């Protein structure tokens, strides 16, 4: 369960002005119900995601997590640049209490990094970083997977491999998808919400949310 309790997020701008990104959001995400959160560019989707996964603290309110929540899939910001891929992997395993041997076997095989596993992250291309981060999140196993836009990275063959592994994990996990693409929500989510003016609007069905979102989108155009 992930419980958002009166979450607000404000950023300081110049001249003492503030931008209110999230405005008093309360909601509980339960295991078993994958939720899609739709929003236009700049609506605060990524901020909400960072607050849900705990990378960034909210200005007000609190987040309670009683399940294991992943970092945004494909996000490689948690990899320390001067450590090698293997050292980063060990560190991540240790903090999540995962079996280092099992994770190593899976990630080595899956991410196809080869000798780069023992090279510092700063020598990696962005695709390699994403592959390592994706492999790690799949190997550790979370109750909630957070997906910011797409999750598939790399070339076509790697994408299909990622897709396959992800579908396997999805069977025992819940997804929170944040996107402006409607097809991803339709494919993965049981419920959907729209983030607008700092508020999170929930709808009974995915289709209702999509309809509302499309209307909002065309109004802006």
């Amino acid at each position, binding site marked *: 369960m992930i419980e958002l309790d009166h979450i607000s997020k404000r950023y300081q701008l110049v001249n003492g002005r503030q931008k209110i990104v999230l405005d008093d959001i309360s909601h509980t995400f339960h295991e078993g119900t994958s939720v899609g959160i739709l929003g236009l560019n700049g609506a605060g989707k990524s901020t909400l995601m960072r607050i849900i996964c705990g990378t960034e603290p909210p200005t007000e309110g609190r987040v309670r997590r009683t399940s294991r929540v992943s970092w945004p899939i494909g996000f490689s910001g948690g990899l320390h640049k001067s450590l090698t891929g293997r050292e980063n992997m*060990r560190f991540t395993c240790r903090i999540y209490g995962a079996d280092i041997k099992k994770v190593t076997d899976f990630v080595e095989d899956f991410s196809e990094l080869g000798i780069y596993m023992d090279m510092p992250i700063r020598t990696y291309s962005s695709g390699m970083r994403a592959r390592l981060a994706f492999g790690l999140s799949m190997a550790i196993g979370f109750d909630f997977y957070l997906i910011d836009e797409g999750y598939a990275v790399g070339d076509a063959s790697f994408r299909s491999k990622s897709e396959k592994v992800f579908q396997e994990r999805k069977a025992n996990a819940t997804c929170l998808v944040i996107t402006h693409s409607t097809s991803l929500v339709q494919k993965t989510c049981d419920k959907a919400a729209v983030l607008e003016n700092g508020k999170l609007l929930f709808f009974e069905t995915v289709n209702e949310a999509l309809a509302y979102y499309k209307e909002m989108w065309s109004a802006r155009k």
Partner: protein
Amino acid sequence: MDPAPIVQWRVIYALMMREVHTIYGTTRLGYLWALVHTMWHICIFWGIRTVMGVRAPHGMHILIFLLVGFGTFHVFSKSINKCMSAVSANKALLTFPQVTPVDLMISRVIIVWCTEMTAGFLFVCIGLLCGIPIYLNDIGGLLAFLLLTPLLGLGVGMICASLAVLFPTLEQIIPMGLRIMFFVSGLFFSATRIPSDILKYLWYNPILQIIEWGRYCLSRGYPVLNYSLPYLIVLTVSSLCLGLLFERYVRRRLK
């Protein structure tokens, strides 16, 4: 989800492993360099004193005298330095929700402490092999002295690191302050050699008190400074409380 103390311990352990692997990770000797650096200081001063023919202090060998002085000061000053650079050196790791700046600082202080203890242990072994007499006067006092130093270092380190977020100039000033501490904490001289009209001010320096107390514990008849255990404990506990409070206050300003 596991209970918080288990998660916290896991994080601190992971950070310690990360620290040990990378302090001197790019060199072939790796962590051994940390030990060499630590021991080098003591060897220099030992050499200087031997060459100059300075008389050994009363009741203990010069090696133990220097070991207590430098070891204690290093634990204190390195703890502060490591706490102050903890966040900037590990920013990426803070993106994991279970990793907090306090964990970074605790793990770094533990590593500093373990390194100094290992170096000290090696010195004691070398000393015993060379037939240097080593006395143990007060074992309880010794244990308390060994624990008090890193806790004080952690407390002051957290305060400095938090204040440096608000006032970045402190990053320049604190090392200068530590340089002064180096000369007024009795690392390579005994507190009894300080004139009493200066000593009455220097007495408030907790590191001077801790060092002198440590020497008393490891000697026979060393003329000890009139240290005050309640003063040291109050100082340590209040620095830890203030440090945790400040850290909490600046945490939201970090990112």
